């Protein structure tokens, strides 16, 4: 007797959506902490944000938005049985995701060179507001970067399965789920960007 494995794409997508809820609440907790401390330290949050580079932030926002587009297009490509195009688009998504991380690396590197990082004595001298702002900045963008890395690994696994034809025009729910995850990572950035870079 063999246990029959059923496939139900809607089930698997429902599961993914529910998982995304939990991710939103995970960051939701941080947004609350951010709001409380911003409310208590309006001036130093305002001034500290000036030290972040709006240019790099904007570039990273564009990068992520474009990468969301490419992964969405790759789903359409696979539906239309165009495996090559789907692979190309996923490759672009991966490259864009890596580019985001490279930018982040330089951004963080610059701050750390200026001795601005959690626990630094230079930062402590600048007062509580700055300590909290940069603490939140490193923690939230760090957690977001971790999500980017997880998303990239997920997309790479998916790309490998497309190469081996395990994901095809008949069965592409895993690609859709990785797309959903990637959009969420993008969406969280859409909130992080104004909170840290734009509200000055």
């Amino acid at each position, binding site marked *: *007797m063999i*246990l029959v494995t059923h496939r*139900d794409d*809607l*089930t*698997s997508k*429902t*599961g993914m959506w*529910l*998982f995304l*809820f*939990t*991710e939103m*609440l*995970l*960051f*939701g*907790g*941080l947004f*609350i*902490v951010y709001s*409380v*401390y911003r409310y*208590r*330290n309006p001036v130093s949050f305002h001034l500290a944000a000036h030290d972040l580079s709006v240019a790099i932030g904007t570039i990273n926002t564009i990068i992520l938005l474009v990468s969301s587009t490419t992964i969405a297009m790759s789903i359409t490509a696979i539906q239309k049985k165009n495996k090559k195009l789907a692979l190309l688009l996923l490759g672009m998504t991966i490259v864009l995701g890596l580019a985001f991380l490279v930018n982040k690396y330089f951004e963080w590197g610059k701050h750390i060179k200026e001795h601005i990082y*959690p*626990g630094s004595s230079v930062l*402590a001298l600048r*007062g*509580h*507001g700055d*300590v*909290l702002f940069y*603490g*939140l900045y*490193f*923690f939230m963008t760090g*957690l977001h970067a971790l999500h980017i890395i997880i998303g990239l690994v997920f997309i790479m696994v998916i790309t490998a399965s497309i190469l081996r034809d395990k994901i095809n025009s008949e069965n592409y729910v895993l690609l859709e789920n990785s797309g959903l995850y990637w959009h969420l990572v993008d969406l969280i950035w859409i909130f992080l960007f104004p909170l840290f870079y734009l509200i000055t």
Partner: protein
Amino acid sequence: MSTQKGFEEPSYLEYKGKYKGIFSWILSTDHKRIAILYLFSLLTFFAIGATLGLLMKLELIAPGKTIMTAQTYNAFFTLHGIIMIFAVVIPGLPAVFGNFFLPIMIGAKDVAFPRLNLLSWYFYVTGVSLVLISQFTGQGPPDTGWTFYAPYSFRTTGNMLPAVFGAFVLGFSSILTGLNFLVTIHRMRAPGMTWLRMPLFPWTLYATGWVQLLATPIIGITLLMIVAERTLHIGFFDPTLGGDPLLYQHLFWTYSHPAVYIMILPAMGAISEIIPTFCHKTIFGYKFIVASSIAIAFVGYFIWGHHMFTSGMSGTALYTFSLLTFIVAIPSAVKVFNWISTMHKASIDLQTPFFWAVGFLFVFMIGGFSGLILGSLATNIHLHNTHFVVAHFHFIVFGGTGYAFFGAMHYWYPKITGKMYDSRWANTGLIIFFAGFITLYGEMFFLGMRGMPRRYYDYDEIFHTGNIFSSLGAVVMYFGLAVIIINLFSSLRNGAKAPSDPWGGKTLEWTIPSPPPVENFEEIPVVTKGPYNYK
């Protein structure tokens, strides 16, 4: 049922799948085998937690140092709390009986994501192992209590990181279970099993699933912040860096209050199964019980502040949280009235599970009413952080979830194992356990009223008599637990063979053989009536 004679399938206990020995268990994706994995790991952790509790009560049998130092006592109540909360009562009914019976009760062959289900067990074991590791490594065990309150949790030299991270991993396991159940209930109900034909245990699991899903991430991120605080000194909750320890309490209870509904809702579900079965009567007010489960899950989100009445909040916040606390008691009371009304004029079959259900009603009501005393602002000031809170908590969580767990254990034991247990010993164990329970925790109400604080290894001479009673109760209760558990294990070997429906239950699990076959149903049943369909 007529299909029974045609069953050729082996039971889930016989069918090994592609692996042998222990691997046929720890690599199985069968929801029934995973439930058994949970059951055994849970019982192990419960034994550890209960032993710690007994040792603490022995310490409290006389003032001053009796058998352990103050530091050991702090470590013990921390570990007792973490294990009992995160590893026993939160997974408790959903992970064991939910896993086993949810698919069967809604007429499905398995949960929606069987592999994820197994993964959540691995997360569970990893999480508890991390918590246990924290006891034996680093600079001494954690000593913050299970609440990890800031700023002490990142100032103590105790080995907090593995414990906090372990709790985070356990949260992940809980999220995955909840997610799995939600999708299963949405997508895999048998044909004809409309929402309002679903039995009440799955209904409570549904409400619980949402709480697990929507509340657990908050504790996840809060615990991560504690980890960051200890390793990177970010200052989220550190007043010397501008952080606010009160904010930690808010975030912590935003999860941990709904978490008590993760514990109690499935327990209420199990009671709602046991009572109609032994009353041989349709449950009274089915729709109200369903609605009250949803209401508890919903209102439960908004009352976390009642853990912080003395921590410092605005007057408006205090009144609001107090009012909402009273409101959340209403749906629980609705359920109690419905259960009692079900018994009215019923021909009750007095079996062990029914005694557990009645015991549940008794202790749950004491626990519930004492909760209202704590929810009133004025009395709370007097009782906060006293033994009264300990008593209330144990009456609700151990008395509620614990009684329902043992009730469910005795109710579904024939189905799970295919054997009947010795009900005389089961009842004897219950009576000893109940007497011990009331002596142990009942006394604490009085001690708390007179001002004995909780979480101290020492106390004033005036509390001595009460503590002697309480500690003796602990010994009696521990003995009762041993009788109950030994009886269940020895019945595995000596018990008579169980029929497919020993109690006359009407839900789907009683239509299949005991123990259930691998695929649960030879043919997916078509449901035409509501549950508890007695004439």
